[in-house]
C-alpha cells in the first residue's frame, strides 16, 4: 500500500507540470480562441459578446474568399510538386549510386534554411537589376518574368519555393519508405521479368502508400497555413493578390485591429485543416482494413 503512495508522490509533479504546460500553452489558448469568435471589439478596449456576427461577416467577406482561393491555388501547386519532386529525390537517395551520402546532405540543405533566409535568398536571385536567376532568364531565354509583380505568377512562385525548400526533408521520408521495402520482393519481381518502371509503379509505390499519405497530409496542411514566405516576399502584394488565409488572419490580428475576427478565421481554417486530415486518416483506415 505504501509503495503506490510513494509512486504517486513521485509521479504527481511530473503529471502536474505536464498538465500545467499543456493547459497554459494549448488548452487555454485553444478554448479562448473559440470564445473570442463570439465577441467583438479589442482585447485592450474590451470585448463584448455578439453571438454569431463574426461568422456571418466571414461568409460575406470577399477578401477572405479571395485569400482562400489563393491558398487553394498555392496548395494545388505546392502539394503535387512537392510530392513528385520529394518522391523522386527519395527514390534517388534510396538507390545505391556512388557518393549518395554527399547527395543526401546537399539535397537536405534547403530544409535546414529558415523560411526568412529562404525568402531573402530568392529575393536576391530574382532581383530585376542584379538577380542571377532573373538575368539568366532574360539573357539566355529572353524571358522577362514578373516574379512578384503579377499576382498569379507570384503565388505560383511562392508555391515552387515552398516545394523546393521542403523536398529535402520529404525526400528523406520517402527514402526511408523505399528502404523499408523488403529486398526479396524486388528481387522476385526482377526474376519474373518486371521492368524498372513496373517495379516502381506496381511494387514500390503501392508499398509506400502510408508514407505517401503522411507526406500528402503534412504538405497539404502546411499549404493551408502558409504565412511566413508571404510575409518575407510579397506582404500580400501586388495589391491583395497573394493574400493567403493565414496572412489575412495575421493582418486582422495585428494590422486590422480585430483579434476576435482573426480568431474566427482561424477556427474556420482549423475546420478546413481538420476535414483534410480526417479525409486522409479515413482513407488510411480504409486501406488498412
Amino acid at each position, binding site marked *: 500500500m505504501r509503495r503506490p503512495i510513494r509512486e504517486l508522490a*513521485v509521479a504527481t*509533479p*511530473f503529471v*502536474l*507540470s505536464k498538465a*500545467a504546460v499543456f493547459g497554459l500553452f494549448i488548452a487555454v489558448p485553444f478554448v479562448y480562441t473559440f470564445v473570442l469568435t463570439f465577441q*467583438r*471589439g*479589442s*482585447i*485592450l*478596449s474590451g*470585448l*463584448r459578446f455578439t453571438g454569431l*456576427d*463574426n461568422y456571418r*461577416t466571414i461568409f*460575406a*467577406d*470577399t*477578401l477572405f474568399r479571395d485569400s482562400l482561393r489563393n491558398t487553394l491555388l498555392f496548395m494545388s501547386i505546392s502539394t503535387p510538386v512537392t510530392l513528385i519532386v520529394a518522391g523522386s529525390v527519395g527514390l534517388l537517395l534510396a538507390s545505391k549510386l556512388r557518393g549518395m551520402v554527399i547527395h543526401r546532405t546537399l539535397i537536405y540543405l534547403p530544409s535546414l534554411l529558415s523560411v526568412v533566409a529562404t525568402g531573402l535568398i530568392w*529575393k*536576391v536571385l*530574382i*532581383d*530585376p*537589376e542584379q*538577380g542571377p536567376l532573373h538575368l539568366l532568364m532574360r539573357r539566355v531565354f529572353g524571358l522577362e518574368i*514578373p*516574379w*512578384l*509583380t503579377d*499576382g498569379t505568377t507570384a503565388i505560383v512562385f511562392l508555391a515552387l519555393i515552398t516545394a523546393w525548400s521542403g523536398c529535402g526533408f520529404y525526400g528523406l521520408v520517402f527514402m526511408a519508405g523505399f528502404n523499408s521495402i523488403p529486398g526479396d520482393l524486388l528481387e522476385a519481381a526482377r526474376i519474373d521479368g518486371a521492368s524498372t518502371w513496373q517495379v516502381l509503379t506496381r511494387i514500390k509505390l503501392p508499398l509506400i502508400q502510408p508514407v505517401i499519405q503522411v507526406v500528402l497530409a503534412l504538405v497539404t496542411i502546411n499549404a493551408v497555413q502558409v504565412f511566413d514566405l508571404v510575409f518575407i516576399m510579397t*506582404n*500580400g*502584394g*501586388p*495589391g*491583395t*493578390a497573394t*493574400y493567403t488565409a493565414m496572412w489575412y488572419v495575421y*493582418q*486582422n490580428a*495585428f*494590422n*486590422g*485591429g*480585430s483579434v*476576435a*475576427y482573426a480568431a474566427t478565421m482561424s477556427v474556420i481554417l482549423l475546420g478546413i485543416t481538420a476535414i483534410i486530415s480526417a479525409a486522409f486518416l479515413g482513407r488510411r483506415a480504409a486501406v488498412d482494413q
Partner: protein
Amino acid sequence: MTGMARAAGSIDRRKFLKLTAGVGSALLLSSCGDDGERAGSGQPVYWTQPNAGQKEMQAFLTEIEKGFAADNPGMTAKTLLVPWEDSLTKYTAAFSAGNPPDVTYQIIPWMNKWRDSGVLADFRDIAPKEDIDKLLENVNPSLLKVAQGAGGELRAIPYVTDSGHNLTVNLNVWEKAGKPPFPTTYAEMIDFAKAMTVDAKGRRLGEAGFDKSKVDHYGMTWPTAPAIQENYVWHYFWSFGTEYISEDGRDIGFDNEAGRGALENMKEMVDSGAATPPGLYTDESKWANAMVSGRSGMQWTHALSADQAKAFPAARLKLLEPPNGPGGDQFMVGGCGYIAVAAKSKNREAAYKLAKHILSPGPKERYTRLILGLPINGSAGAFYTELPDPRMNEFMNEASKMTRFQRIPPALKYQPNEYLIGKINDYVTGRQSLDDMIRDARNQIKQMAAAAG
C-alpha cells in the same frame, strides 16, 4: 554513454526521478511568480525603435541611461531597441499581458490603437501642470490631438515631428531631360514625369523610336509597396478634396468625384509609362534610392540620409511644394513620434522621471537631429547646420517649410491603411476596375469597422 546518463545510472533511477521532479516543480513554481526583480527594483524601462542607424541609436540610448542616472541619483533606467517589424506585436503582447515597458516611443497608428484603450497613463495624473505646459509649447494642434483621449486625457507627449514625404526632383535628371517646368498640380505631375522619362538613347517618352525596354530614367518613382506608399498616397485624396475614410470611420471616403479623381490621377501616372514599373526592385529598401540614384526623376521621399549622400555624391535635389489639387488644396502626411507612460507601470513616478528626461531639451534635440526629424516645439532659424553633407542641411531646412501642409490621417480603432493601399494597387496596376475595387474596399472597411466594435 553521455556524462549525464552515467551520472544518472550511478545514483539510482528512483532517486534521479525524484530529484528531477523536485527541480522541475521548483522551476515551474518559480516561473509562475511575479516579475519581482524588475518591479521591485523600480528600474524604469524604455522601449523604442531604430529610427537611425543601430549603432547610433544604441549610443543614444546609452546616453539616456547615463543621463537619467545623473539626473536621478540612486536610480537607473534600462532601454531596449525593438525592431520596427516586431514592435506592434511586442507592444500588443506586453500591454495585453499587463506587464508593459514603463515608457514607450509611439507613432500615430499605435496611438490610435492605444489612446482610448486605457493602457497608457494620463500625463495629467503623473506630471505637474507646468511641466506639461512647457512640453506642449508651440506643438501643432493636429499632432497633439492624436495624443488626447476622448475625455481630454493626455496619453502621450509629442516628441518629434517628421519631414514627411516631400515631392523631390533629381536636378541632374531634370537637366538631362531639358529642364521641363516644375509641376504645381497633380495633373501637371503626369506631364512632368513623361517629360522626364528618357530611354538609353536620349529619346523622351512619346517621341518616335522611344524604347520602353531600355529606359535610362523614369519620370516618377511608383513603388507598389504598402509600407512605402502609406507615406504619401493620402496626399492625393486630401488634395483632391476628400478623406479616404468616411467621417464616422465606418466606410470608405473616396467613393465620390474627388476620390475617384485622385485614383484616376494615380492610375494615369502608372499607365503613362513614366512611372517606374512595379517590379523594378524586389527589395523595398532599394526604392528609397530610386530618385536620388537617378533611376527616376521625381519621388515622394523622406529626407536625404547620410548614407544616401555618401552613396550619391553628385546627386542634387530640389524639394517642391506639394502639388495643388483641383480645388487648390495642398496637403501632405504629417508624422510625429510620442513618448508615453504605461498605465500599468510598476513604478509610475520613476517612469515619469524617465519620460521627463527623454523629453528634456538636450536629449530631445539630440534625438531630433539623430533621426533627421524636425523639432516638435519649432525652431528659431535653421535647425540643421552641421549634418555631414550640406545637401542634407538644405533638404531638412527646406522640408521644415513644408510642415505647414502636414495633415494627420484619421484616427480609427482599426488600421485599414495597408489593406486600402493593396486595393488601390489592385486598381492602379489594372487587376481590378475602379468600380470593383471601390465595391470590395467598401465591404471590407465596413467589416473591419464592425469587427473593431
